[in-house]
């Protein structure tokens, strides 16, 4: 019996391959978008983990030089003698590769990933020429300068790991860059400031700076992945609903012939699960291709934007393969639960004639609209709540509520159109469009979400770009940036530059804690470039004058929000001093707080800090030539502002490539949803269209009207998507970003982009409606006559 029942159920797909294609394609595309984004994220995160494991970043407390330079060997020896379990790390760049030297005997994490690699021998590592571990790419870039090379895929991209002696030789330095502090330290050891006063201790962090920064980018991608999956689910829901509706006759017949209901429901559930697994497999494979295409751009974006090193090649990871399959199964389960429930509850003698699957009772539509309104009200209430969970709940309530409300909204507009209709054909057109609305509403809801996601995410990314460009202008306002390798060279540079440049602004800071939060205190020299270029978010009085006079301080937005500071309230600036807060400056992409005080006060409070980086105003070409030729500064220590700005913008263009590609894919999925809805509805529409044809409307005219109908509905949906997308962008910028990262991005509007997107949506709707309209225009009269012969 089971075999016969299953054969009958499966025969439906054989006879309706288009429906099977819709179902599998919808689910595959949804899974592909989801798993593609997840793959990119997983790959990037895996790279950070490798970096963190290699470099010990975040995992262990670290001892650093207070002046930002290297740690003197004498200090290291003094700490070891005093009982501190610290391990030196030599670090520097060679041929574009980060060279890290570790001492395997004292490093708390051992050799990190190298211990797992084949070919690692501590004896060989320590002795003689030593071994250098890294990925093939990193080792190749290092060239012949490295001694024995060992390929270790687990080492972070463009990083090599070696013994301290080898690193010292390669980098030509005698002092470690920092010291790793073992988690378990002996009791009673003397405090750091008495053993080595020039050093500071940085506590271990839950996540490294890099991962915290890149989280903002991942959040963007993950939100996009979820939205895309939601769009895909609408297609699957529609396809499953239609397949079930069209099989009502078969279900009734099977039951009438003696197939038990429970067996039938189980068979249908098993059939769907099998289809979901097939579609999930295809989706994961497609997602892999999407990720492989996007990853080089993502890697470049992250590397440039945050300095995070991400491999440009994709590895196949079972975790996201499994998660893709799981999401396909769960999505199918969610989309088919209602349909299976209806089948289970369907009375055996219920009308078996297939009808448009969503031509539900008016009560159901009203309930849907009410649920949508309730969710929008919940979203409004969540505006008052704080925290990341509340922000995401607000996002979900807003999107789902708007989608549920869309059919009711469109119905209102169409009803108004019907009331103003002039001739009989126009009257029929509006009434018929209203009748089609339930059947098309799932596809239109998918289009609404896709367009809103496009508007929202592109507004966010574009706003981010504008803000960041302004921020770069502000922070890179000088013509040249010059770095010194140590305090002595810094002092010589300052003396060299001051007579030659219009202005030299030392960049000097110390790490400290403000209100229990990690912060950097900067001392700034009195110069008009600060008040001219730095845009303050809030300020009182003459903030820069107060800062230069040592009577006030300016903090960055992150610290202002996280520490709950208020203008006028005193802020700790290190050395036991407190100054009133006179302004807040936007500081995007920086996880730590910044406190800005005048140079003179800073020097009094932190006499140990020396400037090793300088912002210089003047003729960049002449200054550069003088620095290289007269001072003998290596060109690598001179940065050109124009080049930096161009590089930053280039990074954003890459970010746009990634979001742009995802935008196009999501819109394509929504267009596909419309196409499939129209195609599947076409067959069910013949009984509605045949009488109009019989009354004198030509088939070609009917086809044209179908096209106009699709464009009209898409245009109305696009109009609804615009405010929804802007609301989505506002929530992402003003709620999610603040909750997740502590800074709020200003929102800019891009009307030309929205107009272009609306045009794309209309083109997608026309393309989707073209085929069904053409089919209708060419329907043989015999097919239409069958309607009257009661043979349908």
């Amino acid at each position, binding site marked *: 019996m089971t075999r016969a029942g299953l054969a009958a159920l499966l025969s439906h797909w*054989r006879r309706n391959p288009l429906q099977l294609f819709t179902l599998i394609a919808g689910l595959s595309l949804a899974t592909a978008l989801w798993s593609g984004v997840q793959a990119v994220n997983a790959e990037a995160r895996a790279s950070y983990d490798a970096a963190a494991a290699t470099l010990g970043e975040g995992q262990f407390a670290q001892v650093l030089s207070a002046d930002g330079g290297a740690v003197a060997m004498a200090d290291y020896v003094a700490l070891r003698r005093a009982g501190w379990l610290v391990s030196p790390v030599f670090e520097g760049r060679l041929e574009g590769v980060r060279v890290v030297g570790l001492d395997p005997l004292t490093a708390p994490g051992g050799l990190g990933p190298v211990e797992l690699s084949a070919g690692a021998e501590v004896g060989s590592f320590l002795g003689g020429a030593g071994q250098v571990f890294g990925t093939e790419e990193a080792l190749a870039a290092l060239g012949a300068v490295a001694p024995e090379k060992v390929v270790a895929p687990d080492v972070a991209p463009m990083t090599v790991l070696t013994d301290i002696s080898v690193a010292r030789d390669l980098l030509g330095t005698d002092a470690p860059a920092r010291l790793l502090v073992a988690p378990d330290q002996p009791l009673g050891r003397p405090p750091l400031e008495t053993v080595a006063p020039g050093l500071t201790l940085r506590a271990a962090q839950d996540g490294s700076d890099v991962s915290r920064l890149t989280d903002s980018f991942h959040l963007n991608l993950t939100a996009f992945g979820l939205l895309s999956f939601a769009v895909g689910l609408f297609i699957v829901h529609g396809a499953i609903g239609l397949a079930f509706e069209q099989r009502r006759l078969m279900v009734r017949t099977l039951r009438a012939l003696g197939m*038990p209901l429970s067996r039938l429901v189980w068979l249908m559930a098993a059939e769907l699960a099998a289809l979901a697994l097939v579609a999930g497999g295809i989706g994961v494979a497609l997602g892999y291709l999407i990720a492989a295409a996007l990853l080089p751009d993502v890697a470049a974006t992250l590397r440039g934007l945050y300095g995070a090193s991400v491999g440009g090649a994709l590895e196949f990871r079972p975790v996201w393969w499994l998660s893709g399959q799981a999401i396909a199964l769960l999505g199918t389960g969610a989309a088919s639960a209602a349909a299976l429930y209806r089948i289970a509850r369907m009375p055996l003698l219920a009308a078996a004639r297939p009808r448009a699957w969503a031509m539900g009772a008016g009560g159901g539509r009203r309930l849907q609209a009410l649920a949508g309104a309730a969710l929008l009200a919940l979203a409004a209430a969540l505006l008052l709540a704080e925290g990341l969970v509340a922000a995401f709940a607000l996002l979900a309530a807003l999107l789902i509520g708007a989608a549920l409300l869309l059919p009711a909204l469109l119905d209102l507009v169409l009803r108004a159109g019907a009331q103003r209709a002039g001739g009989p054909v126009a009257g029929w057109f509006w009434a018929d469009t209203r009748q089609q609305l339930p059947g098309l509403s799932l596809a239109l809801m998918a289009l609404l979400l896709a367009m809103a996601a496009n508007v929202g995410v592109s507004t966010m990314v574009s706003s981010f770009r504008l803000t960041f460009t302004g921020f770069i202008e502000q922070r890179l306002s000088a013509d040249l940036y010059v770095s010194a390798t140590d305090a002595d060279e810094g002092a010589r540079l300052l003396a060299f530059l001051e007579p030659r440049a219009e202005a030299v602004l030392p960049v000097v800071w110390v790490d400290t804690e403000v209100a229990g939060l990690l912060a950097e205190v900067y001392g700034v020299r009195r110069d008009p470039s600060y008040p001219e270029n730095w845009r303050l978010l809030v300020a009182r009085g003459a903030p820069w004058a107060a800062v230069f006079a040592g009577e006030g301080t300016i903090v960055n937005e992150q610290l202002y929000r996280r520490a709950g500071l208020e203008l006028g309230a005193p802020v700790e600036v290190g050395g036991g001093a407190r100054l009133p807060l006179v302004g807040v400056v936007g500081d995007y992409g920086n996880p730590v707080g910044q406190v800005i005080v005048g140079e003179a006060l800073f020097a009094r409070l932190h006499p140990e800090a020396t400037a090793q980086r300088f912002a210089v105003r003047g003729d960049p070409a002449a200054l550069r030539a003088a620095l290289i030729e007269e001072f003998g500064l290596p060109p690598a220590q001179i940065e050109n502002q124009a080049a930096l700005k161009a590089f930053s913008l280039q990074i954003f263009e890459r970010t746009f490539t990634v979001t742009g590609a995802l935008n196009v894919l999501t819109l394509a999925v929504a267009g596909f949803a419309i196409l499939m809805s129209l195609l599947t509805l076409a067959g069910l529409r013949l009984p509605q269209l045949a009488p109009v044809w019989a009354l004198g409307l030509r088939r070609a005219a009917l086809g044209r009207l179908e096209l106009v109908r699709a464009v009209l509905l898409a245009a109305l949906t696009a109009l609804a998507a615009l405010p929804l997308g802007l609301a989505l962008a506002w929530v992402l910028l003003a709620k999610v970003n603040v909750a997740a990262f502590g800074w709020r991005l200003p929102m800019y509007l891009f009307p030309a982009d929205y107009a272009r997107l609306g045009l794309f949506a209309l083109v997608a709707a026309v393309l989707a409606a073209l085929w069904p309209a053409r089919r209708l225009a060419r329907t043989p009269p015999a097919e239409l006559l069958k309607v009257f012969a009661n043979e349908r």
Partner: protein
Amino acid sequence: MLLTIDDLHKSYPGAEGLVTVLDGVSLELAAGETMALTGESGSGKSTLLHLAGGLDLPDRGRILLAGTDVAGLDDRGRARLRREVVGVVFQQFNLIPSLDVGANIAFQARLAGRHDAAWCRDLAARMGLADHLGKYPEQLSGGQQQRVAIARTLAARPALVLADEPTGNLDEVTAASVLELMLELVAESGAGLLMVTHSERLAAAMGRRAHLARGRVA
């Protein structure tokens, strides 16, 4: 007795409250016997047929089918009854559109676990369907579709055949030939036949007749 219906009541909710369709119907049908069920539209003929076949449940009364109380069975039990004891021929044919003619004819027999390929072929030949076994229902005429539906029912060798206006959608000539075939095959198999019909001519061809009026056997 193959089928015993005793004091059967059935109502449905209507726009103005409950509408009584059957109001104390009783009748009996022996194995090998044929009976026409006649009456005006809305007299409850189809409802009685559905109740007899375990497709629906009565509000009150008893239906004994091959010694089994149908009203006392749960959904699974009634499904087994429909599969193994009863065969229903619908006015709208109710063929499975995605299966070809051959698969449709064999379908119920396979569900019942009584598939006999030779008997199916024989039935198809006698119904004039031998050349159409690879076709799909939509490619057949109404008369051909109804013959497939009858063959599907008889292929499972049910003890009771219930037919709901099986020729209602067919022209007179086709209807006569289909009925003749059905009666012949039912007689051969020894099954009982209860057929709803509006046609006096068809009713006259049956062994007995029960006329329903206002929910009762007149």
